[in-house]
């Protein structure tokens, strides 16, 4: 190694690419970065591209968004419209924001395409974030060391909602204007600060003449800047932690198995970007969305029936629709507390988001687990987590459906009031049922795994012994498949110190421990242990009446194992 800062003359690059690399490296030490990252290994699975889809739809949003800002004018000045837009709009009084939306759709060639791609990309952005979160949740990818990245991701999801809502309102049409009015109603319901917060948002009384320019700044500067910064943090942590991997032979918490970034993932991720962009372009080309000229410019009086917000806002809309109004507006010392708005619009979403924020920490606490996890869980192997996730989604979907109760009523010719009542009940019953059914399915699948490991796959081949007994031949699992089905931890509920110490003195903190233990029991009381080599050996001994030795630590399985043995 030479002490000179530049490579010796013998190493001097001769090719143009080599010279350029040398020039760059001497100024940026890019060589180190290339050495570190070029062949960095990423594990391969289709579900790992869901997050990429979110990222790429965001890139598409930025590209099409820049196009739109060239032509959109976020002004609320009132003008009479005479342009290339539809006949019905001619001569109407409207804001410049609405008029410029018409102009960029009808006068700018490709403008309507960009607007529609932008809107579809926003819907796909939120959808891929939600599905990506589902993947991370159900596989336990939020566990140590990734809890912070889960929080960053959840904040990104909320920022995505803010970006979508602020953008949706910009054209200043009747539909989005009434959406803003609902927002104003929700803001006003907040105790003490409500009226002032409404003035804060609208710069005076609703709708005023400030809201569109303000939303524009929020939509094109504030929220995207925050999203970009947090995407940076999200990806930095992902690279730092190295990606999680699905369980399988050779995949451990200490390694990462997969293909190198260059060239495989450059091609796959790059390809994925173009596919996401291509499909969004196809959607923008063929599926019209938010034709604001059908609604008209904002006017506080008209409203359309059967109006729906974008899908990611439906749960809030449904929540507002389900809440019964009777008896839920309280007057305390002359001050009005609108629980009929606060509960569905603030408390319910607050609870849903709080669940997302605290879950990783809650699960780590009741599991008593401080290890790093880089191999993902199969959802069946953590039945209570999977059940809770399904319960959460059930509540979300029921609220979203309730946000379309008027369309359900008109399309299926049903009573709106009965549908609303059914959803009110389902909102409480559905998640419980969803949890219970999912947990039972998970336990069932785990038992099936045991069954397969112990007795192999059915082959359909029936053999008759000399003594007349028939058996079906079972084919043992190969070691890769068996490993997949036995390689997991069946966590046990927390064990805590006794209430009193050896000398009978009460231990402080016992009650708290006891409460955590209770919660831990809820998580891990019912569990199915993976097959051990001893159990497999016992099953293979083909002894008709052999008790499986180590089955006693999951008594519910004893009878199952016996039955299985009798098949032989």
């Amino acid at each position: 190694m030479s002490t000179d800062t530049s490579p010796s003359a013998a190493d001097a690059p001769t090719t143009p690419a080599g010279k350029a690399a040398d020039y760059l490296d001497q100024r940026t030490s890019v060589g180190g970065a290339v050495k570190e990252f070029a062949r960095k290994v990423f594990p391969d699975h289709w579900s790992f591209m869901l997050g990429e889809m979110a990222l790429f739809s965001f890139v598409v949003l930025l590209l099409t968004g820049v196009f739109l800002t060239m032509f959109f004018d976020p002004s609320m000045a009132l003008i009479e419209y005479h342009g290339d837009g539809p006949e019905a709009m001619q001569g109407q009084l409207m804001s410049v924001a609405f008029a410029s939306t018409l102009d960029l759709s009808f006068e700018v060639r490709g403008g309507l395409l960009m607007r529609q791609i932008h809107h579809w990309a926003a819907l796909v952005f939120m959808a891929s974030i939600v599905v990506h979160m589902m993947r991370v949740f159900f596989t336990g990818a939020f566990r140590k060391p990734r809890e912070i990245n889960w929080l960053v991701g959840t904040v990104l999801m909320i920022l995505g909602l803010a970006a979508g809502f602020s953008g949706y309102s910009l054209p200043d049409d009747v539909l989005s204007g009434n959406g803003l009015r609902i927002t104003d109603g929700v803001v006003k319901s907040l105790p003490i600060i409500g009226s002032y917060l409404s003035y804060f948002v609208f710069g005076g009384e609703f709708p005023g003449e400030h809201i569109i320019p303000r939303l524009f700044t929020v939509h094109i500067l504030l929220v995207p800047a925050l999203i970009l910064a947090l995407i940076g943090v999200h990806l930095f942590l992902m690279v730092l932690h190295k990606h999680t991997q699905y369980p399988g032979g050779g995949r451990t918490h200490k390694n990462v198995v997969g293909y190198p970034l260059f060239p495989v993932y450059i091609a796959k991720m790059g390809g994925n970007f173009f596919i996401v962009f291509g499909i969004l372009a196809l959607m923008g080309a063929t599926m019209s969305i938010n034709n604001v000229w059908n609604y008209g410019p904002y006017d506080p009086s008209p409203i359309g029936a059967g109006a729906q917000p974008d899908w990611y806002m439906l749960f809030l809309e449904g929540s507002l629709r389900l809440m019964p109004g009777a008896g839920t507006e309280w007057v305390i010392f002359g001050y009005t507390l609108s629980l009929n708005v606060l509960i569905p619009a603030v408390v319910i979403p607050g609870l849903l988001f709080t669940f997302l924020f605290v879950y990783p920490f809650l699960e780590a606490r009741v599991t008593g687990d401080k290890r790093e996890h880089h191999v993902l869980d199969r959802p069946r192997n953590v039945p209570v987590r999977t059940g809770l996730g399904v319960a959460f989604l059930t509540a979300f979907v029921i609220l979203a459906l309730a946000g379309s109760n008027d369309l359900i009523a008109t399309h299926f010719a049903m009573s709106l009031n009965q549908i609303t009542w059914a959803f009110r009940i389902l909102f409480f019953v559905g998640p419980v049922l969803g949890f219970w059914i999912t947990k039972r399915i998970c336990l069932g699948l785990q038992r099936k795994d045991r069954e397969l490991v112990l007795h192999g796959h059915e082959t359909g081949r029936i053999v008759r012994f000399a003594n007349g007994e028939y058996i079906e031949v079972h084919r043992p699992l190969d070691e890769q498949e068996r490993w997949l089905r036995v390689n997991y931890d069946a966590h046990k509920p927390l064990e805590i110190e006794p209430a009193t110490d050896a000398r009978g003195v009460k231990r402080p903190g016992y009650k708290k421990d006891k409460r955590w233990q209770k919660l831990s029991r809820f998580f891990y009381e019912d569990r199915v242990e993976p097959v051990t080599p001893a159990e497999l050996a016992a099953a293979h001994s083909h002894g008709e009446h052999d008790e499986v030795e180590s089955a006693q630590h999951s008594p519910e399985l004893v009878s199952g194992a016996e039955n299985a043995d009798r098949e032989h």
Partner: protein
Amino acid sequence: MSENQNTPGRDVTAPNAAAHPERFDDPGVPAHRSRLTDVDPKAAKRNERLIALIFGISCVGAIASIVVYFAVRPDGTTAGTRLSTALLGTTMAISLLGIGIAAIHWAKSLMSDHEHVDERHTLASSPEVREVAVQHLADGVEDSGIARRGVLKGAAVSALALFPLTFAVPLISSVGGDWNVSKFRHTIWERNKRLAYDPSGRPIRAADLTVGSAAHVIPEASQEEMRSHEWITEKAKAVVLLVRLNPEDLRSDQSPEGETWSYDGIVAYSKICTHVGCPVALYEQQTHHLLCPCHQSTFDMADGAKVVFGPANRPLPQLPITVDDEGYLVAQDDFAEPIGPSYWERLK
């Protein structure tokens, strides 16, 4: 996973006298399975040609997009714009999807699919590193003298805590306009203000309303007045839904003792929902029910606009009306209570 690696008869864990391990052993990364393109050069060549073809289609799409841009000019009709949008978008999609599909197919069929293994390293810094880090911080604290100089610390913290006010006070004092939230209480309705049709602004004669009819109502104003933000903001509070019922169908309204707020079966209620403020616009003539299309609060127009279903809690406020000398409907006064959604100081 490959299920034919082990022959069916092979039993890797046949029982024996030796003690069994507690857990199974990791069998290691599965053996690489060659793809057709790995073993058959013809297949590889075929795929190479296919990928090149798809890239080629992408080029065609991009060029077609430019051709479409210049060739298909929108003719000013909605259909023309739609055609241009569909062609521009489809050719764009061909260009993009071509690149995406070709790149991914290249990666999957021709690039090496031998699995690599990287080691992970513990994230936590080593005890030595932590020790040095803590020492550096301690040295920094020592150098700054912040621990010893209490007054300095207090002064610095105060300055840092106060400076955001220089930014926040001007922002907050201006951002809410005049902050006069008592405007929620009043609308532009006043004694003898005529009721007019929305949006024409034509005053309404009581005699012109047939029984069973409903009308969207605004306060009478000149066309000039209506072309301003002040008007839109006032209209947002003042809109009214008026219904003429058979006087015997009108079970009740909100008139206090000794006053009559309706006129000959004509009742006028605020159109702004008491839930979160949507315009309540769907009137059902048979049941006299008024339905809010946003959250389905339902009000009974024949019974004081009481809530019969949905998330609203309070009846819609009634606008007291009568007729003037010329037979036009006029307001007796402003609404007796704030219209629209509830807020904290509504009753104060």
